């Protein structure tokens, strides 16, 4: 065998449809009824420190809501969202398709099953006639190829009170970081009470318009996880600027408008600087898994 042919001999790790369906199904269940510990901690800390009477009352209701949702198995929020899935597929894996023709079909089966079995709200409608699809599919599926022989995925249950406040701006290449901070502040200010503050912020900087939007959404799943050393300063600046706005919990005034922010970046063109902002409500419902 010639050396150059050996590369094709690598054994692929075969992954069954069922493994993916089960993990996505359980991730949706987990995310819909309970918050991850680090999200919960940020909320509890805010409640302890919030000074505004209204703000405190809102945070009390939020804490009570988290408790009831978990104990009585009632969805945290009636807007059980659209399901956004970020898949990172290891190049050493191969999905053995049998019943399904594509990954989209396969994950949509998991979504449909979870939304039916756990009595979640079916909020997806066709466009433009706006007929409810009655099973919350399709989901929003993003796939990236990564090295390795496993599949990593993040499930984001994205409510639209906050999604409707997303924004994109094509900045000039010469833009200073402070202008970005002010843009994010303007987004959150205009959003007011609608995205259910205190919010979490995902920011995408660079790439093309749609890449920036994608990065901002993906930055939301970084919340509470790895922090990028080079972005920590700007993230901190954004959080403290947002918490000077006075919007507060529920938009009723107070200190805690934003609980955390994350930035993702990508190289961009010499002529531009796209910046996108995605906002998540306090009920930041997500779950990650490895297959």
């Amino acid at each position: 065998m010639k050396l150059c042919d050996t590369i094709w001999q690598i054994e692929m790790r075969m992954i069954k449809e069922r493994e993916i369906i089960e993990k996505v199904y359980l991730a949706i269940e987990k995310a819909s009824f309970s918050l991850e510990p680090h999200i919960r901690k940020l909320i509890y800390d805010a409640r302890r420190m919030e000074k505004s009477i209204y703000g405190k009352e809102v945070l009390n209701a939020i804490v009570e809501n988290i408790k009831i949702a978990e104990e009585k198995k009632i969805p945290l929020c009636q807007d059980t969202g659209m399901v956004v899935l970020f898949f990172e597929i290891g190049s050493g894996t191969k999905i053995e398709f049998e019943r399904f023709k594509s990954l989209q079909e396969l994950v949509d089966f998991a979504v449909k099953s979870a939304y039916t079995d756990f009595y979640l709200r079916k909020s997806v409608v066709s466009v433009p006639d706006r007929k409810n699809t009655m099973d919350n599919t399709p989901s929003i599926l993003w796939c990236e190829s990564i090295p390795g022989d496993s599949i990593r995925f993040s499930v984001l249950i994205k409510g639209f009170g906050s999604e409707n406040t997303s924004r994109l701006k094509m900045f000039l290449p010469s833009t200073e970081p402070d202008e970005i901070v002010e843009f994010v502040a303007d987004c959150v200010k205009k959003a007011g009470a609608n995205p259910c503050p205190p919010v979490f912020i995902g920011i995408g900087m660079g790439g093309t318009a749609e890449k920036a939007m994608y990065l901002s959404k993906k930055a939301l799943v970084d919340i509470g996880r790895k922090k990028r050393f080079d972005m920590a300063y700007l993230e901190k600046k954004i959080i403290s600027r947002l918490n000077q706005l006075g919007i507060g919990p529920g938009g009723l005034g107070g200190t805690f408008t934003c609980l955390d922010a994350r930035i993702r970046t990508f190289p961009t063109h010499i002529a531009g600087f796209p910046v996108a902002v995605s906002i998540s409500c306090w009920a930041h419902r997500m779950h990650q898994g490895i297959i």
Partner: protein
Amino acid sequence: MKKIITPLEQKIINELVAGEFVEISGLIYGARDAAHKILFEMLKSKKNLPFDLRNQTIYYVGPTPAPPGKIIGSCGPTTSSRMDRYTPDLLRAGLKGMIGKGIRSDDVRKAIVKYGAVYFITYGGCGAYLSQFVKKSEAIAFCELGPEAIYRMVVENFPAIVGIDSKGRGIYSF
């Protein structure tokens, strides 16, 4: 904490002040975007509505389905401003109360003053908590819309805050 009963009486509405905490008990109707659009069109073409709007309160909600043996699923407020374009006409037809979250347009605020109505806000994203105050719930119209159907609900001590009072004063300061 002021306790108020629905359907709302004018005297009670007139006494409410923006920022006041209240507990609502009685009959309310759950309706959101799609239902509002249909109600608005029915009013315009002078058709009979599926329920009498006069003195009633609408809660902007699309609950999750009730599991077997349960009254309702998660049922928190949705963003009120999406209903703004329909609200003045509904108020003219006799609607007195609204429950939702977030700011309203200036037209809605003016209509609230003109027709002596009130806008309440409640805790966004707290659908599990708020479901505990719902004692009865049934879909009464537009069931084909799924979560966007109109629901007739009975609530007990449902927590809310006066968002815009009948004088047009509002709670949001920004």
